[in-house]
């Protein structure tokens, strides 16, 4: 950010008139609506990387992450497959359609109630494949280890990876290890890539959501994020809660079996939580996603911790929950299929898709009011009082 920020900002005394001129037929709008139209236009512009350095916000899954992905990576690697920015790439090969994905895991602490970085690294990549509608087949794993890392911890991580791979029915078939000097990494980082078979006819995409569709979530949200926050031990809060890390290939296949062509998309609610997925849908499909706060499944302990910390469970990460948008005619079948699976007993219908206003996620609050649910810039920052 430059020192003379003030002089570089266009101060337009006639901005309201400009807004009207920019939107033909906007004369009937109130002044506030004109400003809103101007903001919508500004948000639709191609994202630009304004920062000089990477900050933690760029890894948090919110607006800063989106800017990094679209302005740096997508710009450099652009191709029709990558451009869709789905959880995994969907590839047509001579042998049939494949899904291909990769993800890195840097969680701290490495071990937390309900799981560790090992099962996270397997489940996360399995889930990205499952969300494309694929049957997960093979995984690769790359380890970056810090000099001095205890071998016993590594063995513990690898054992839980093996167990998770067994549970998900995938094989870890290739890998790589690098060791960096002490202080150059935080113990252990893992990158996994995965390949799965797309055996169904369906093409799932955030852009496929249509007005009238039903939005569902597969269970209580925010368990993983809150567990990890508490496990860091900085808050001096203890609570009876475990990470929800789990492979979603079975429950997602069950939804596809039950609701078939009615399923528009499935996404696992990792970084950025359910709020971020709904925003991705709203923007990609140019629809409004209307959520019902009273219908959101949130455990009391997650609600309590969030209230104390001043954060919103809608943005808290899950590692074993997914959001799906389905044709309303198939909603009952999809919900029943979720609830019939052990990972989906807490599944719920949480909202609907509308046509207007496009690109926005609205929340009917439990209190009875209305607000929007926007993307966060970076990690949720706690309020001070």
């Amino acid at each position, binding site marked *: 950010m430059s020192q003379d920020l003030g002089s570089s900002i266009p101060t337009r005394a006639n901005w309201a008139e400009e807004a009207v001129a920019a939107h033909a037929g906007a004369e009937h709008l109130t002044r506030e609506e004109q400003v809103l139209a101007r903001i919508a236009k500004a948000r639709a512009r191609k994202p630009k990387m304004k920062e000089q350095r990477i900050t933690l916000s760029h890894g948090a899954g919110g*607006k800063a992450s989106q800017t990094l992905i679209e302005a740096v990576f997508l710009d450099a690697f652009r191709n029709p497959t990558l451009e869709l920015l789905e959880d995994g790439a969907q590839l047509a090969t001579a042998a049939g359609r494949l899904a291909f994905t990769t993800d890195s895991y840097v969680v701290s602490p490495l071990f937390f109630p309900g799981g560790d970085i090992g099962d996270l690294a397997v489940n996360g990549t399995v889930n990205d494949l499952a969300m494309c509608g694929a049957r997960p087949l093979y995984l690769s794993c790359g380890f970056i280890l810090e000099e001095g890392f205890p071998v016993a911890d590594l063995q513990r991580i690898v054992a839980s990876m093996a167990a998770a791979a067994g549970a998900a029915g995938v094989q870890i078939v290739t890998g790589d290890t690098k060791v960096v000097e002490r202080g150059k990494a935080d113990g252990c980082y893992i990158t996994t890539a995965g390949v799965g078979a797309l055996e169904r006819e369906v093409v799932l995409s955030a852009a496929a959501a249509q007005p009238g569709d039903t939005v569902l979530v597969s269970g209580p949200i925010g368990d993983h994020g809150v567990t990890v926050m508490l496990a860091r031990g900085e808050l001096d809060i203890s609570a009876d809660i475990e990470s929800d890390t789990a492979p979603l290939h079975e429950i997602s296949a069950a939804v596809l079996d039950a609701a078939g062509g009615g399923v528009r998309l499935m996404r696992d609610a990792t970084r950025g939580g359910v709020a971020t997925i709904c925003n991705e849908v709203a923007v990609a499909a140019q629809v409004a996603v*209307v959520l019902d706060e009273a219908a959101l499944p949130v455990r009391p302990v997650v609600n309590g911790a969030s209230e104390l910390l001043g954060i919103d469970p809608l943005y808290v990460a899950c590692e074993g929950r997914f959001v799906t948008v389905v044709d309303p005619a198939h909603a009952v079948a999809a919900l029943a299929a979720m609830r019939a699976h052990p990972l989906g007993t807490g599944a719920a219908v949480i909202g609907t898709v509308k046509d207007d*206003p496009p690109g926005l996620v609205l929340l009917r609050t439990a209190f009875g009011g209305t*607000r929007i649910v926007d993307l966060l810039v970076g990690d949720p*920052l706690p309020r001070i*009082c």
Partner: protein
Amino acid sequence: MRFVDEFRDAGMARVLSTKIAELCEPGRHYKFMEVCGGHTHTIYKHGLEDYLPETVSLVHGPGCPVCVIPMGRVDDAIAIAERDDVILTTFGDMLRVPGGRGSFFDSKAAGSDIRMVYSPLDALKIARKNPDKRVVFMAIGFETTAPSTAMTVLRAAAEHLDNFSVFCNHVTIIPAIKAILDSPDLRLDGFIGPGHVSTVIGCRPYEWIARDAGKPLVCAGFEPLDILQSVYQLLRQLAEARCEVENQYARVVPWDGNTKALQVINEVMELRPHFEWRGLGFISHSALRINEKYARFDAERIFALPGVRVADPKACQCGEVLKGVLKPWECKVFGTACTPETPIGTCMVSSEGACAAYYNFGRFSRDRVKEATRT
């Protein structure tokens, strides 16, 4: 959730909403200022305006502790953080606030050791763990958070933790309300008083507002029903031609405040002759600093600070927003040049800032979403 759900009951809200509408004189427009940023956050987060008639508008006040910090103070804190031997700690809300040379996040990315804490006692813990480092806590907030900062200084003194210090930016609420009342551009019908500040200072310091300035004030809690009830109480005073200080938040706020907390503040801190508020300028006796007795814990005395006054960017209208003269969306750069991703003004940073609350929660046309949210 117990102790929370009771204060978010939609049925009760509908009852209050009807009563509020009944109290409104036809044709009269009412403007109430919620002084505290916590209230602003609650209003938008729960969509509370849906329950108010169009003739009752809530004006957002100056009580967002992050919003009132001037850019020069951010630069001073970053200058401290840039020293190799320093760990700077502060509240999460502060981290994205832009100074003249970037934010705490930018400085952290460039190599400074800046850590988010939930309480000043966490900063003290870091000081204990890092005896070879100087740990500075950037303290912000009104009288609400000042006692915990003061307690932390007392604890540091008792433990002889001389590597700990406080960069004190605590401000006081009464001079800010005076500044609002002195502002010629604003016509208010009453105040929704800051509940958490009042748990410390009590309700007595507001009595002059009703007596001399002729504005009713209801000290309010932070749940949505608290705020609706406070609006009801204000309207009722106006309808009955009363002008008083009332305490809606009596479950937490004692009329005389928390004498122990006030004693702790007085032990460790003293009023500054004047302090710059972002957008409001210099206000006399409006902020606290560490006193002579605890000088060794005062970062302002320990470190040579640039202390340069940095003028707000020309386009920034945070001052007008903080005074309630402009609604967030009426600012020239709102939502285009100034967004939560690249904030120009503080009001767009803190979740208690009026601009951030409006941008993140309220950025929609009520007429257009009526259809979308119809059940």
